[in-house]
């Protein structure tokens, strides 16, 4: 007479546990793949193509315009800055413009507004080249345009030593005004703009 062989209970538990783990792993992998496939297009990066700046952050002061109050605010930030003087200038204004194109901005700029390049030309001249989306999409008005210009000049000169004059270009070319009012034909004297920035920091 053949007597039946009993499978040890601990072996049964072990096999059951392994099957459960394999099943849950299968479900996890399947769901992860489905999520990745469903969100593939929205992951496309729409912003400006620029290498991210990494490294230790530095304290800087950005002069941020507030349209409702009609003033300029000196705001401390800590941002990573590259070592080159020109790259630092570009990174500073890039951070300032990012504040302005954010949805909750106190001084909104048009979509696609960018600083294309900044050229630091000795002795003391900085040339800021903005794109046409910046100028064409800018709201028109004496104060609102003045806030933009002053914010950029003051932010640049406060953080980049040696800048004494600033000139604006639009898409690499001279332009008469930013949006019908603020003069872009002349060179801005940093000392004069600093006085204006001080005036603009006082609440009316």
């Amino acid at each position, binding site marked *: 007479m053949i007597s039946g062989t009993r499978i040890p209970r601990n072996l049964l538990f072990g096999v059951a546990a392994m099957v459960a783990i394999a099943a849950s792993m299968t479900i996890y992998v399947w769901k992860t793949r489905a999520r990745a496939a469903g969100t593939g297009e929205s992951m496309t990066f729409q912003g400006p193509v620029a290498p991210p700046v990494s490294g230790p952050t530095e304290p800087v002061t950005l002069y941020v315009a507030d*349209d*409702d109050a*009609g003033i300029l605010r000196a705001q401390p930030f800590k941002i990573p800055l590259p070592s080159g003087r020109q790259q630092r200038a570009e990174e500073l204004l890039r951070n300032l413009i990012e504040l302005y194109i954010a949805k909750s901005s106190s001084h909104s700029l048009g979509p696609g507004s960018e600083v294309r390049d900044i050229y630091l030309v000795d002795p003391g001249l900085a040339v800021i080249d903005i794109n046409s989306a910046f100028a064409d999409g800018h*709201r*028109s*008005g*004496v*104060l*609102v345009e*003045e806030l933009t*210009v002053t914010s950029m000049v003051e932010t640049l000169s406060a953080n980049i030593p040696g800048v*004494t*004059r600033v000139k604006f270009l639009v898409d690499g070319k001279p332009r*008469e*005004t930013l*949006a*019908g*009012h*603020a*003069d872009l*034909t*002349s*060179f*801005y*004297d940093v000392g*004069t*703009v600093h*006085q*204006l920035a001080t*005036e*603009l920091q006082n609440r*009316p």
Partner: protein
Amino acid sequence: MVDVGGQEYSGLLEVLEPLGRVSVKTDNKYWKLRYNDLELEFTPNETRVRIKGSNFDLSSPFLLQNGRGLVPVSSLGPLLSRVLRGPVTFNPASRRIFIDNVAVHFTAQILSSQVGTAPTLVMNFSAPVNPTIATDASKLHMSFVHDPIVSPSTQTLTFNNQAISSAIYEEGNGAAEITIVGASPLFAKFSNDRKTITIAAAPAVAAQAPAQPPASAPMPGATTAPAPAVAQGNPLPLAYFAVIDASHGGDDRGAALTSQLDEKDVTLSFGRRLRQELESHGLTTLLLRDGDTSLSLDQRAGMTNAAHPVIYLCLHMASQGNGIHLYTALLPSGGATSHSFLDWDTAQASSLARSQSALALLAKALDDSKIPVRTMSAPLRPLNNITTAAIAIEISPPSNGPAGLSSTEYQQSMASSIANAMSFVRRNLGSAP
């Protein structure tokens, strides 16, 4: 022009020949005209025209007379607009065609005399002009055959002056004519690259002209500097207390205050209202732009500097904020003034202290009127090109939003307050530093 059965026709070939390459081909049924790369196909005695595959209808049938293609004059404007692919304005009464936006506008102002000198009429044009000038007793006729001069808001400009009483604008037979009516023989001088014509009594008569009292009391700080843009070596008296510059105009719309309200229209209507208010306070005022005219910033500065006012007021409108913002020039970097030459970009430098004094007085007077005022400097041309006290006035909308900027009540209230404040400025500016 040809009259056919009471309908005026024009030869199309003659109109287009000065404008580009034109050739004509006639076959049994069609009269084909090629203008540059565009082909037009006309059928004699029919109104339908084929223009590069699409149809165009004339108001009367096309006529072919001895090989000459004739189109009705009333259809000439729309037809040319299609052929030239741009705006064309045709005035059948005066037989003048304007291609593209080329209209030349003008302003005419009497510069009132000092004791012992004759009055002068200064006409400023938005582009150089080349009229034919003829005199006839006490009238001076200027005929503009090739200059696209357009009518001012009224065809007869009346000056409250005995020596030069009016200027009459007329159009006809392809030309515009301006007739200046005086009390004695007149002569004209060109200056400012032919953009300014100065008309005065002929010298022999001018020498005998009776002395006339000045139009207004001497202004504080008044000077009698010569006006080089108007006439060489001929000192012109200070005639205006204020020059008002209604900013923007023509192609420059300024800010879009609402979807249907442009800044240029509000500055113009407000400028006219402010001029009236200032004049009612006895402050002689010149409005630089009294129509929807394109004036460059340099032209505005040039016209203002030539008029030698005590103060220049540049008007702007804002779509947000409240009250009034007052600005003086934020002078740009650089600018070397040597000998008798002023640097154009910093021409305001020598008058900046006076501008700031006027600004402080104006702000105080407006503040006393309970109008919120904010003062600052701004990089706003042409403030930096003006050689007298210069202030920009930016008016914010009322509580009901930017659309309220065009309301009569709001404009009148603001104009009245500013005019009152300017009276205060005039009384006190002389003693200001």
